[in-house]
């Protein structure tokens, strides 16, 4: 008997330690990020950093204006979300509400498989297949541009958005649908007025997680976006989102130089952005939490 209690205690403690470890790791990473990023601002003003138009990090003294990079990140995320949200959510609705359960059983694993594709593979496809295609069809100066990166990023966020939305729709109790149909609502009315509102929190979370995946994605934007540090003036303008700069330059930045600190400062900004997305996601999940069916 005592032996069991001892075992139980050991298991409890080791689980607690594991949980604490991941928390400590996160704290450590955040601390490191801030310690390495903030020294830049001791002699470089935040305004010049954030609103600066030019990024010449290797000059003496370096010029670290990230505004075009920031706008590049926002532009590519917004555009890819504009593609990915309808695609992901509508696919989820089709799979859960309309498709035959056999069809669903076949299609869903494939969509989840899409999420398993390494980003470097998608990036390569974007660079070698999609970019020349865009160049040809739209007569663009270069296929490596905002639109190209946004389309490839769409492939990355659709599985996340679709899969989580589908789970949310699946969790809506069947009694709700049956009730709605029994009252004479059409299938579309049922989906639009009953099922979607009931699954809203899950879908909101799905969208936010999909977007945070897009904004933090590095390999795809490094390979497909063109890499020009300018404010995009059209869909076909090459851009240089923030993660691409970090990935391309970190290896060559002299240790603890201004350039090194500036790249970490970009990292802080990215971290805060994804944090925002995640907080919004959990707020949506919290606010619209469906407790039972009574509140509908």
């Amino acid at each position, binding site marked *: 008997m005592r032996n069991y209690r001892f075992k139980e205690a050991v298991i409890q403690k080791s689980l607690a330690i594991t949980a604490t470890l991941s928390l400590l790791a996160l704290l450590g990473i955040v601390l490191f990020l801030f310690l390495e990023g903030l020294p830049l601002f001791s002699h470089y003003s935040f305004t010049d950093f954030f609103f600066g*138009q*030019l*990024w*010449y*990090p*290797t*000059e003496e003294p370096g010029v670290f204006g990230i505004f*075009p990079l920031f706008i590049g990140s926002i532009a590519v995320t917004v555009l890819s979300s504009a593609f990915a949200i309808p695609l992901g959510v509508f696919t989820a609705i089709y799979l859960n509400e309309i498709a035959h359960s056999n069809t669903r059983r076949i299609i869903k694993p494939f969509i989840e498989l899409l999420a398993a594709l390494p980003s470097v593979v998608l990036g390569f496809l974007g*660079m*070698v297949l999609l*970019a*020349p295609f865009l*160049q040809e069809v739209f007569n663009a*100066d*270069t*296929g*490596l541009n905002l639109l190209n990166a946004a389309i490839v990023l769409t492939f990355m966020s659709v599985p996340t958005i679709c899969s989580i939305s589908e789970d949310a729709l699946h969790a809506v109790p069947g009694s709700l649908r049956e009730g709605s149909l029994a009252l004479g609502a059409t299938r579309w009315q049922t989906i639009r007025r009953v099922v979607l509102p009931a699954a809203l929190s899950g879908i909101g979370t799905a969208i936010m997680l999909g977007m945070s995946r897009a904004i933090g994605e590095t390999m795809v934007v*490094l*390979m497909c976006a*063109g*890499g*020009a*540090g*300018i404010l995009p003036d059209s869909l076909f303008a*090459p851009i*240089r989102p923030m993660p*691409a*700069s970090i*990935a*391309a*330059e970190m*290896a*060559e*930045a*002299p*240790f603890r*130089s201004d*350039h090194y600190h500036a790249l970490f400062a970009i990292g802080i900004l990215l971290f805060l952005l994804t944090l925002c997305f995640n907080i919004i996601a959990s707020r949506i999940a919290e606010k619209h939490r469906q407790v039972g069916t009574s509140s509908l």
Partner: protein
Amino acid sequence: MSLGKICACAVLSMAVAAPAMASSQIVINGSTTVLPVMQKAGEAFMAAHPDIHLSISGGGSGNGIKALIEGQCAIAMSSRAIQDKESKAAAAKGVTPVATAIAYDAIVPVVHPDNKIKSLTSAQLRDVYAGKIKNWKELGGKDSKIVVISRDTSSGTFECWNELVMKKTRVMPGALMQASNGAVIQAIAKNPNAIGYVGLGYLNKSVHGLTVDGKEPTAANAISKVWPISRELYIYTNGQPQGDVKKLVDYLLDPSKGQKNVAEIGYIPMPTK
């Protein structure tokens, strides 16, 4: 009890095995430009010296020199000379980086094979990259916008280009920054309006290498510095190479061994004295 025994055994066996593994290890880090040479030569070197183990990784010239200063590697590969800041940091840590040139690398401006332009001057190249010349028409080509492709600002290749071609003029912000020689080739091969630059060793049939100031991009021209855009590739050691490190350096500089690998990778071997 039994667990204790196993532990004791493990410790004992490690203690016994340690002298058997006494072979020394040389840690090498740095420029990805030099990396392929080091990997190729390193394999043959390890086969010839089974007692010496090489641990080779890339990460950029800056990272390599950083690691040398921090004492994390014995050899730093670099595609550029050490910077003042880095020398100072080294001095503060009591490290004296010594450079040994192991190969020449020439940078060649490239265009799409269909492009009519086959030759440019240094001044024209500078104006194109500065954004002053925007259309191929201005260079005698067809009427279309020049898509300027560059390497990202912290690569050794960019630095070399910036120093030898741009000469203190800024590469325009609208230039497409690509992260590797391969990515530049890929982008040029797919775009008839693009211009870029790559290491001589990366030149292939999918792109066309331009002549600059009437000079052909060849190995001989790079060594004699007739080719205007060429540089040396270095390895840095703390003090003069000694012991096993010296064996490796000698191997790299041997015309029948390491220098053969240099040529195989596409760089230019050091001229024999």
